[in-house]
């Protein structure tokens, strides 16, 4: 038996972006395609000469990896770095465009809990069905049945159709089945982001246990706390390539460093590809520091502004904006909504472009990146569209910040400078009075 669990050589996967929207063809298109084939071939030669065609995306682009057996390994990276695609290729769901993969051992994948659950079937029936879909044998499911039910904590409702379950129960049952899958190589994608805190802890414990049993776990996550707790080694993906690998602490640090460099203070869209709908579209998001300069490096003791430029495409529209901030661990720090805008909230806006501006107070955020997502909504919150992680603010703590002279780790999604005072409330002479009480 080799010591390697997975060996990946020059792995690449290309997607056609254009075909992601209307991914399937119709017969008519195929037929007209035949007629146009010579012309299309000409075009493709031309676009090949220009370099990459603009409608293809390399989700993975030359990945080489050797993953030793019996170790939990984290895969981290920004959105769109190719993490999920890598898991999909490893679990054979999709075929790579180029390169090869060697897998030593049975592979189980948890890309989403509860796939294949049928709402009309009972909990008991779904355990068998889902187990079979994940690749368990019937005898194996029978053997672990009681354990699965106990883990899921839904024993009283095991013969109820799962459509009557609460979402929490549903997820617990689904994870319980998946957690009892015992492959040599387990691929996990972000499933821990489910259930309540208590159950998440239980899941983390189970994952750790799987790792300790000497099985290989590949764990994709945005949650750096979970990554650090579960995995000793990590791989950083960026733009479909391996950007770093090694000790988890170092790789996470590298990721955080890269994220802050990649912090973009401004993002603008051309009209053709601006996100939006028939009523409004987003044109730009930018960050301005206290002196009005566009920049993503912000002193934690200074206020800053987030500007959202958008276009109103109709003549009378009730429009507003929101901002949502996440920290690098993926936790939501705050969300804020423009419904206290004195000029336009609740008023119809005429056609035109607008700039919505949100003032962030000084001394609120801790050191680190903040990922900004924006929402444009309308008609009394009836609709809205969100653009995730459009800009990144990097907050820097300087001398005099809320952490003061304390240099160790401080928890919390916010770190406001709160006034502290203390005063004497007694002298030693009053002590007997206190003990008397």
């Amino acid at each position, binding site marked *: 038996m080799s010591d390697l669990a997975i060996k990946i050589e020059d792995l690449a996967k290309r*997607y056609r972006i254009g*075909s992601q929207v209307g*991914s*399937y*063809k*119709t*017969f*008519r298109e*195929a037929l007209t395609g035949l007629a146009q084939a010579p012309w299309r071939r000409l075009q493709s030669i031309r676009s090949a000469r220009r370099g990459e065609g603009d409608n293809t995306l390399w989700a993975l682009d030359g990945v080489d990896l050797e993953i030793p057996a019996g170790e939990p390994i984290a895969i981290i990276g920004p959105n769109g770095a190719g993490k999920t695609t890598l898991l*999909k290729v490893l*679990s*054979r*769901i*999709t*075929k790579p465009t180029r390169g090869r993969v060697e897998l030593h051992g049975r*592979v189980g*994948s948890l*890309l*989403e809990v509860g*796939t*294949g659950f*049928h709402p*009309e*079937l009972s909990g008991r*029936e779904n355990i*068998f*069905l889902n187990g*079979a*879909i*994940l*690749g368990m*044998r*019937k005898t194996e499911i029978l053997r672990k049945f009681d354990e699965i039910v106990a883990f899921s904590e839904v024993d009283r409702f095991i013969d109820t159709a799962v459509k009557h379950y609460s979402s929490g129960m549903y997820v617990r049952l689904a994870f319980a089945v998946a957690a009892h899958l015992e492959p040599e190589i387990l691929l996990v994608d972000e499933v821990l982001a489910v259930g309540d805190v208590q159950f998440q802890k239980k899941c983390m414990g189970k994952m750790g246990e799987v790792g300790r049993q000497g099985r290989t776990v590949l764990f994709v996550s945005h949650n750096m706390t979970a990554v650090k707790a579960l995995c000793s080694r990590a791989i950083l993906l960026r733009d479909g390539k391996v950007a770093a690998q090694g000790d988890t602490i170092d790789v996470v640090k590298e990721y955080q460093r890269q994220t802050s460099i990649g912090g973009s203070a401004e993002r603008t869209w051309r009209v053709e590809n601006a996100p939006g709908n028939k009523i409004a579209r987003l044109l730009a998001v930018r960050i301005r520091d206290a002196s009005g300069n566009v920049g993503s490096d912000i002193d934690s003791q200074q206020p800053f502004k987030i500007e959202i430029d958008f276009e109103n495409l109709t003549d009378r529209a009730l429009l507003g904006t929101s901002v949502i901030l996440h920290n690098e661990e993926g936790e939501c720090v705050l969300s804020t909504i423009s419904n206290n805008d004195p000029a336009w909230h609740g008023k119809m806006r005429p056609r035109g472009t607008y700039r919505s501006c949100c003032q962030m107070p000084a001394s609120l955020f801790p050191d680190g990146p903040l990922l900004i997502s924006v929402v444009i909504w309308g008609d009394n919150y009836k609709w809205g569209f969100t653009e995730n992680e459009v800009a990144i603010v990097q907050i820097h703590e300087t001398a005099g910040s809320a952490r003061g002279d304390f240099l160790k780790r401080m928890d919390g999604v916010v770190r406001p400078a709160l006034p502290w005072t203390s005063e004497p409330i007694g002298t030693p002479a009053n002590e007997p009075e206190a003990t008397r009480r």
Partner: protein
Amino acid sequence: MGLRELVEYHELLYFLVWRDIKVRYKQSVLGAAWAIIQPFTTMVVFTIFFNRLAGVGSGEIPYPLFSYAGLLPWIFFAQGLSQSSNSLVGSANLIRKVYFPRVVVPMSSILSGLVDFALAFVVLVAMMGFYGVRPAASIVALPLFVLLALVAALGVGLWLAALNVEYRDIRYVVPFIIQLWLFVTPVIYPSASVVAKLEESGLPGWLYGLNPMAGVVEGFRWGLFGGTAPGPILLASVGSSLVLLISGAMYFWRVEETFADVV
């Protein structure tokens, strides 16, 4: 290639069939009765319009029995086609998230039709009792014709399921195909009339057997009621069914790797 994997995943196939059956009968008010109502009412309509009004004959066998016996394998086949052609697209969520041999999805949707078939068969037995028709000795061959219907349904079903992933308008074509196919299959009329016409115009009669369902329906009736065994037609149907199955499986295996990206 894909066969060994299929053996490995036979339990999944079993569970998917079991799920289809369970869900089908759980959700509908009449449940299992549907499996009987459909062929029975069709038989009644056929008897009134084709036999009584249009004068289509059925030899010694009473026409209701004749058409019902033809409808059983036909409905199994037709439902197999319509269920399997949509099966992969209907399981898109599964296909995008988990790996398993994709062929179990269309297979299970065809196999689950066997339960409906069995229920409708009970009515057939009752009808034979009612008309006082005793089963022929050839009834031992009956399972073989069910198997042939399965092979034919699977062959066409694999083609349609795989094509439907890539070309979504297949789902509009399928009901149309089924409708036309019924008329070229000897459900309403006996195959002898078609064979006679073929031979009259100097063509070999077995050509009719290139429609796999011609052999299935003819063989099924022979199994039940006896008479002259369907020779050349049956052979041609076995051949065409196998060609459909093998080509369907080959096409399916060639394109299944891309299902997750396009479904």
